[in-house]
């Protein structure tokens, strides 16, 4: 299958290790991975902050960059949700029918990483090895926009050596919320503090999630408080093996 990686602008710029891990993982599972260099950003930050006019060209750029692939896979539930929920509406509001049609064709082929692994490839045991105590934070957009359900946990449970522990009050938002973290820093920090408390209660060495944006926020508080807990994207755990550890 000809798979395109949509790495997302945040991972591209700040967390390239996540993109490399996903490439390694998909190749290990026997798939060709391409990275269309024309890709940039799904437009979520601008759209969700109220700058719709700025988001529209990015939606167009996304449709151009990924046209023709059988599947587009992304290691971000939040960006996948943006594409699925909003790209068709933004395209149809543009009044350009051909653009709307192209977006309409593309969007069903865009998968968040765990959807692609579990639903399309039909695997939960990806041959990973990660001998650490890990807790999993299900991000809001993965839960309530994409409805990925327990797919990430099913993948994690098959990882050899892992000691997977449940995160208390897991479904509560961590307080990131994109520009919310800057516009309402006090409430954001208060929410993060509670998330950090719950993470530390688990005794986990690593906090895992399907979005680096939330992990950047929680991780920033974990290192600031010298908690000794590291953050690691789900793709990096699933890509890890005894030969190539994460």
């Amino acid at each position, binding site marked *: 299958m000809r798979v395109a990686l949509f790495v997302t602008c945040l991972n591209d710029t700040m967390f390239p290790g996540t*993109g490399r891990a996903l490439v390694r993982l998909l190749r290990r599972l026997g798939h060709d991975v391409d990275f269309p260099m024309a890709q*940039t950003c799904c437009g979520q930050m601008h759209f969700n902050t109220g*700058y719709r006019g700025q988001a529209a060209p990015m939606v167009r750029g996304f449709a151009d960059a990924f046209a023709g692939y059988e599947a587009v896979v992304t290691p971000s539930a939040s960006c996948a949700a943006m594409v699925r929920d909003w790209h068709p509406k933004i395209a149809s509001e543009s009044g350009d029918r051909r653009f709307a049609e192209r977006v309409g064709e593309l969007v069903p082929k865009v998968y968040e990483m765990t959807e692609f692994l579990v639903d399309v490839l039909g695997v939960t045991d990806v041959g990973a090895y990660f001998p650490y105590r890990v807790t999993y934070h299900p991000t809001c957009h993965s839960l309530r926009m994409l409805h990925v359900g327990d797919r990430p946990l099913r993948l994690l449970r098959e990882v050899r050596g892992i000691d997977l522990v449940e995160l208390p009050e897991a479904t509560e938002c961590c307080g990131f919320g994109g520009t919310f973290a800057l516009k309402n820093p006090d409430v954001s920090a208060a929410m993060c503090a509670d998330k950090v408390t719950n993470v530390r209660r688990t005794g986990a060495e690593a906090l895992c999630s399907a979005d680096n944006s939330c992990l950047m926020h929680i991780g920033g508080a974990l290192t600031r408080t010298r908690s000794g807990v590291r953050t690691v994207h789900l793709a990096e755990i699933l890509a890890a093996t005894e030969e190539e550890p994460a």
Partner: protein
Amino acid sequence: MSVQNSPGNPASEPEGRGAAWTEERRERSDQSDEGRRRLKAPRRLAGNTANTAMPTYIGMPAFPDAARRAVGDTRLRHNLAHATSTIRGRRAGAVAELDDWGALREAGKQIKDHVLANLGHYLRLLEENVTAAGGTVHWARDAAEANRIVADLVKATGETEVVKVKSMATQEIGLNEALAEEGIAAYETDLAELIVQLGDDRPSHILVPAIHRNRSDIRDIFRREMPDAPEGLSDSPAELAEAARRHLRAKFLSAKVAVSGVNFAVADTGTLVVLESEGNGRMCLTLPETLISVMGVEKLVPSWRDLEVFLQLLPRSSTAERMNPYTSTWTGSTPGDGPRDFHLVLLDNGRTATLEDEVGRQALRCIRCSACLNVCPVYARAGGHAYGSPYPGPIGAILSPQIRGIGSEVDSSLPYASTLCGACFEACPVAIDIPEVLVHLRARAVESSRKHPGEQMVMGVAGWTLRSPARLGLAQKAASASRWVVGRNGRIRRLPGPLSAWTDTRDAPAPPRESFRAWWERTEGGTREDRRGGR
């Protein structure tokens, strides 16, 4: 609206209070005690906007500033966390009992949408049927008109006191304050509203208005402000409830005029419906000679069959009860039974303007259950007062800026008072997609505001960069080149300007040695040997 919590509910006995408004209270403390006792809480809502919409609370700062104070109030934080998580758990249980909840929710949504799409028809039908049943219908364009109508109706009776059933609509228009200016004292009879009113305070929750008060606060308020409070009143919930009961009983028996809100109005019979839990509403709706009900125009349902849906949705979402304790219905007036004189005030106050907005109009489906408040992680930390309106929480964040317009500082900040986590949408019994409306209103806030040129410039530059892979690549190279300056051990401890809001409480990651796209280019997609490896 009038769904209330029972006094014995632990969730309604918080142990502290918010500080968001304490400074303002201090400023007002020079008012004479006598004046405060005569006209309870007349000054807390003096309208500072034009006569058109619900007043913004005086001096209300933008949400982030008000929330900052609330976040620092440890008792408020503890109480809200405890209270909201208790109600949240119960609601989830009550909803899980029904295997057709999804269908009920869809039915509720569709009934409301149908009414909104045919609002003129159903309002005329309601007016016709209320009038035929002996009631009088009044139409009010805005808060000022509604207040004028109610004040004139009360004056025509010659009375100077009214008893009130808990009502969001009259909170919205600041009715108590408007009546006070006309020399009419309005007494709240819902226990929590009574606590708020006696404490010269503001409600902070739709269902549990005194959620920010604990029982020792309540004892102190009763001792100080309730003339007939018993000697040696303790803070036991039973004693407090008994004191309130005795205090209110005298009001019920002497009042000649009552004012209520309306939960639902059945158009095809002209029947009004109020839901409450304490029985105070039943007293107000049956004992006085004159009843004046103020109703937002969106509260209609076509028929009794439609009402059935909401009598399931509302109690389970609101109080987590299977059935509402006191559901009062009345149609016009009935000789020898209940009020002789019934007046219905139909309130627009920004609703038809909201209806014009294709995305925003879904906020008018709201049945004021407050499920969205109880699941909202932002509300649980910021408290209700930070929203600067009688409608707090997620629903307030989409309702207030639509009813009042997005002009004021607090209203333009409300659409941003959310992480878009989606918990509110999930809990809403009439499927209001609150995140969708929030994002929609953010776009309106950006269009209508020129107050943040800095932000607009930053977003402009970011947009320009992100539109082009080449420019993004260059920006990434610049970021990577700066990593040794800005980051120590891969972490940035302090960022300048507005970004300091991040690093005040969180480290930021230092940029990596190379971006993903740089790595892909250098190694031809990882197929060439990657000597550098790592991050």
